[in-house]
């Protein structure tokens, strides 16, 4: 590729976790967990090294096999990829620690779900691969790796409910992948290339292009549980083991969002229409309201948190209409664009951290009281101070109250909405925040309420509580590097050509 520095790090980021994953297969269950945990921590370390590398050297690339695109595959680690990889490492690292202790406590007989470790490492590799990939088909392979791992992890408990939810999830995921791949086939048929950069240059508007982009988007929407396709998410996320729920909510669904963002910013300057953007925004808006309302109505803790994920993903969908100007309109300044997409990315990070903490805390509560009815939270403050703090902080971040990370995310989203002139999304954000506050404070209210009948809280390993709290605190601490991260993303100029195309009116500009 043109003059960008190469680095072996992208290859290592994918290869290393897989190497560890296959190594873990050789060990006895107990040792497997240790090796797996060590592997996770090493992977996290590697990811941080990679992040620093990008901050130092800017975008680095790697071409496996040494073949340049379009024939070969390009791995490109730019600021966006680095941020996502860093997020995965941060959240993943904490969850690994939690999982190590949690699984042992849950299932001492078989050594704590030994399959968790190879699957999680594979999942990690898949996520890294997805963030790095610059090739449409390679993206398909990585999302398949992710889907299979995710579903396998989700059914790890082996309970009937989890299996059913898992099958639903898997079928949705396969359908999504196939829809995505159909779009890729059409794009390849039209352009003869799979490389994203190349595609952005040669793609021409037309029925095929528009249809392909829509099918790709549809597939990815199914994968990220966008509104009408959210049906699989709540059962799958709520039936999984706590660390798995955290992984699924915090990281897995974000993979599809990442591709969608990349494609919309880099490739879809031509071909996607204003109406399509509005439609996706509408889906997001409905998801925000519907998901929050559903969360509010739940009586089971994990279902509540899972529905909240549907709503929070809705916010992410709402950035897509803002990326497209109405027909016939051009713009001189891309202020609103950079606010919108960097805000979206920031929202992803803050949601990942907060939601992971939320799920981990829910896992602790369930472990302590033995069931996951919301009532179990009664007098939590009196019994488990650390966990109640974690739930409180994570909840506040989800609502988007200052000074949490969620606040900065919502701030930027709302600003993007107002700057883009599409003010009609603003009430949705407000209503969503209120509903979120509704269910978060419903939980907190119970946590403060005195216990009715004396239900004993079983003691829970301190490690778990501390990890959940650390994550919750992180969801506030990420406010401090917010400026740096956003500048880092903005200055990287990754979407330069895409933004230019949008400013010129995209599809309409070419007519």
């Amino acid at each position, binding site marked *: 590729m043109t003059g960008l520095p190469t680095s072996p790090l992208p290859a290592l980021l994918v290869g290393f976790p897989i190497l560890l994953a296959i190594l873990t297969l050789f060990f006895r269950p107990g040792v497997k967990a240790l090796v797996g945990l060590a592997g996770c921590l090493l992977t996290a370390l590697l990811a941080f090294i990679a992040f620093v590398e990008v901050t130092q050297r800017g975008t680095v690339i790697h071409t496996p096999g040494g073949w340049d695109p379009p*024939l070969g595959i390009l791995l490109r680690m730019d600021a966006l990829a680095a941020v996502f990889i860093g997020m995965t490492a941060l959240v993943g690292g904490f969850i690994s620690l939690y999982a190590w202790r949690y699984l042992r406590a849950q299932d001492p007989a078989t050594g704590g779900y030994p399959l968790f470790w190879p699957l999680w490492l594979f999942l990690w590799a898949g996520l890294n691969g997805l963030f790095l990939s610059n090739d449409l*088909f390679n993206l*398909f*392979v990585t999302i*398949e790796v992710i*889907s*299979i791992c995710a*579903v*396998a992890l989700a*059914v790890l408990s*082996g309970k*009937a409910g989890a*299996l*059913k939810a*898992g*099958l*639903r999830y*898997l*079928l949705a*995921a*396969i*359908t999504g*992948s*196939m*829809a995505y*791949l*159909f779009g890729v*086939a*059409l794009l*390849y*048929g039209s352009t003869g290339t*799979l490389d994203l950069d190349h595609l952005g240059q040669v793609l021409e508007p037309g029925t095929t292009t528009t249809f392909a982009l829509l099918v790709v988007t549809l597939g990815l929407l199914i994968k990220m549980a966008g509104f009408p396709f959210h049906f699989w998410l709540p059962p799958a996320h709520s039936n999984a083991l706590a660390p798995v729920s955290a992984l699924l909510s915090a990281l897995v669904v974000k993979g599809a969002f990442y591709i969608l963002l990349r494609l919309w910013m880099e490739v879809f300057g031509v071909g996607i229409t204003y109406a399509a953007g509005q439609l996706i925004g509408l889906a997001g808006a409905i998801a925000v309201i519907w998901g929050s309302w559903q969360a509010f109505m739940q009586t089971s803790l994990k279902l509540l948190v899972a529905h909240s994920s549907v709503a929070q993903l809705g916010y992410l969908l709402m950035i897509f209409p803002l990326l497209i100007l109405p027909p016939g309109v051009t713009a001189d300044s891309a202020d609103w664009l950079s606010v919108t997409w960097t805000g979206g990315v920031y929202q992803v990070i803050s949601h990942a951290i907060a939601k992971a903490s939320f799920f981990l805390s829910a896992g602790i509560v369930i472990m302590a009281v033995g069931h996951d009815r919301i009532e179990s939270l009664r007098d939590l403050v009196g019994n488990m101070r650390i966990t109640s703090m974690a739930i409180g902080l994570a909840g506040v971040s989800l609502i988007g109250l200052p000074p949490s990370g969620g606040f900065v995310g919502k701030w930027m989203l709302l600003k993007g909405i107002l700057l883009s002139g599409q003010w009609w999304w603003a009430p949705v954000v407000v209503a969503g925040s209120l509903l979120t506050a509704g269910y978060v404070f419903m939980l907190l209210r119970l946590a403060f309420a005195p216990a009715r009948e004396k239900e004993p809280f079983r003691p829970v390993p301190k490690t778990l509580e501390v990890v959940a709290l650390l994550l919750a605190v992180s969801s506030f601490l990420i406010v401090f590097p917010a400026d740096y991260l956003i500048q880092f993303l903005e200055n990287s100029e990754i979407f330069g050509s895409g933004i230019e195309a949008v400013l010129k009116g995209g599809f309409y500009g070419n007519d």
Partner: protein
Amino acid sequence: METYQIYSITSGVLFVIGMGGVFLSKHFIKKIIATIIMGSGVFLAFVSFAERDALSFADPVPQALVITGIVVAVASAAFALALARRIYQLTGEESFTIEK
């Protein structure tokens, strides 16, 4: 009509049949098979585009992609099948009961 177009049209039909099948079929096995049919449509699209400007050979890239894709689809389907069978074993259910 070129040869590739016959098959690319077929691919579109298969894709839609498969997609409809995933949503409309009830039995687990049929849903799984529907995903395979959907996938077949996708692969047929790739391969039909490969054929259109064959030199000494048809475009090998889509062929390679399809081989990869088939294997991936089979792996997912095998997993789905395992889930379906286990669910049947545990609950005796062969399709998703209407649940909210």
